[in-house]
């Protein structure tokens, strides 16, 4: 079985969010870059777990981005990916990115494509669905568990107020979230072997950008907290009821 895992590069969760160039670009000065947590902790680690159970499984990683994404691809290889593919182009239109991944996925005839549920920067949660449509495959979103037996996948996914179990035959696209796997740290052996694992760079295919980012803005600052004395909890309830009209 061949698994393709999408690996997106995102700012660290504690990164300061600020913009430059007349608020058209994210200010990258001093920003630490990480693998998008949903891609790493859930999609990638689950793929590696499947490989640990069945050594015939191979796990390939795909990133659409510039050379500056290679350190995070090496980290993903250190965690246990077999091979990484970087499509050498930048972009933030999800249709464009999904088109690139779809091309690689088609060429590589993967049985399973795993993505994180969304990226923590653009919060699009759209790559998995777009990819599935481009590949004409079923898509199970927001999955919390995934088991494979033969050619059948059993997936649990979140629904409003609960969970649903789904059976689907491979090939399949799944977007992964909490519950799927536990975060791991690469070990020394993984880090050493990652250095020699293949990291292929391919050029992008022609695809359109259907959207473009015009500018960014920060939310207005909060007015400041209104503190109520600990002895006067009734006053807090009154404020919430009468002033904030919360209930």
């Amino acid at each position, binding site marked *: 079985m061949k698994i393709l895992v999408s690996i997106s590069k995102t700012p660290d969760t504690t990164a300061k*969010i600020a913009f430059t160039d007349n608020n058209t670009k994210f200010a990258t000065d001093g920003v630490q870059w990480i693998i998008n947590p949903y891609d790493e902790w859930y999609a990638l680690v689950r793929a590696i777990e499947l490989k640990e159970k069945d050594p015939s499984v191979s796990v390939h990683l795909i990133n659409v981005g510039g050379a500056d994404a290679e350190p995070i691809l090496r980290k993903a290889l250190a965690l246990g990916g077999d091979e990484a593919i970087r499509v050498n182009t930048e972009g933030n239109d999800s249709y464009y990115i999904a088109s690139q991944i779809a091309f690689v996925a088609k060429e590589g005839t993967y049985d399973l494509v795993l993505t994180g549920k969304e990226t*923590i920067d653009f919060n*699009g*949660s759209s790559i998995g669905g777009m990819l599935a449509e481009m590949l004409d495959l*079923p*898509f*199970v*979103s927001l999955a919390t568990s995934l088991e494979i037996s033969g050619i059948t996948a059993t997936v649990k996914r979140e629904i409003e107020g609960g969970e649903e179990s789904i059976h689907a035959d491979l090939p399949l696209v799944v977007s992964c979230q909490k519950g799927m796997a536990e975060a791991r740290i690469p070990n020394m052996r993984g880090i050493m072997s990652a250095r020699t694992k293949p990291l292929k760079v391919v050029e992008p295919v022609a695809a359109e950008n259907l*959207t473009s980012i015009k500018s960014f803005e920060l939310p207005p600052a909060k007015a400041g907290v209104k503190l109520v004395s600990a002895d006067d909890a009734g006053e807090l*309830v009154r404020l919430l009821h009468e002033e904030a009209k919360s209930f």
Partner: protein
Amino acid sequence: MSVLIYIDHADGQVKKVSHEALSYGAALAKAIGTTAEGLVLGKTSGDLAVLGIYGITKVHQVTHANLDQVDAQVFAALIADAAIAVNASVVIFSNNINGKAIAPRVSVRLKAGLVSGAVSLPDLTNGFVVRKSVFSGKAFARVEINTPIKVIAVNPNAYPVHTLEGQAEVVALDLQPRDSRIKVTATNKISGKVPLSEADLVVSAGRGLKGPENWGMVEELAELLGAATACSRPVADAHWRPHHEHVGQTGLAIAPNLYIAIGISGAIQHLAGVNRSKVIVVINKDPEAPFFKAADYGIVGDAFEVVPKIITAVRKLKGIA
């Protein structure tokens, strides 16, 4: 031309987030001088004509046994076909669980640019520019859609519901769903509780509560308010609370009208999941807790003393002995 709004439903009932999407679609239709029409896939209970109060003129419905389970692939194909049938120039979804699965597929089928997580009506002064939430609620982006047909998925609780007098015409749409390639084998709903993702009010607690045995007062306050319960990540990781209650950067992102945080420090990753809440209340014994900076109201004090007092005050307000 028209604006087509996908109407999501569960257990026969149209979801509240779809009322928001309908209001959004109706306002947009007015701005571009066209009609807003709704689309229901599958059977619902009750009269769909009443959805006219949200400003739509028609509700198209495809009823077919195959639509009892939501398969994004099947639904997206039908919605795209319906969009073409009604000559829609914009297709609106709620950016809820189903919307997130279906809207991207519709975008590809129609080759229509998608903005998901929209928080306000498009700015039409110069192109078609939609404001969306990015960086986990820490910023907004203004995104232009460059295609003739547009797809927008509106964040839950971002656009207010408007109602007026009116009835919609309910029209059966004769479209044939394709066969589903997935099979739902079991559904597990946590009954009797308000689902966190849809809750207006949320009572949440963190490591400050010391152990799972102390959650009684959290549940009691939530029940009194009709609120859902949530927790910080370490609390879920330690199995004090179920995983589906974990909110934050790596858990669920929510935007309730009221978020009460008890014994939670307010780490940046926690705030990323709750910063879109309309009103934030923080109860923490440490006056330096970062959460106070993001709060609207706060009490510096010991949760074990403060929360029972709040419960008493809410009971009094609600006239419960």
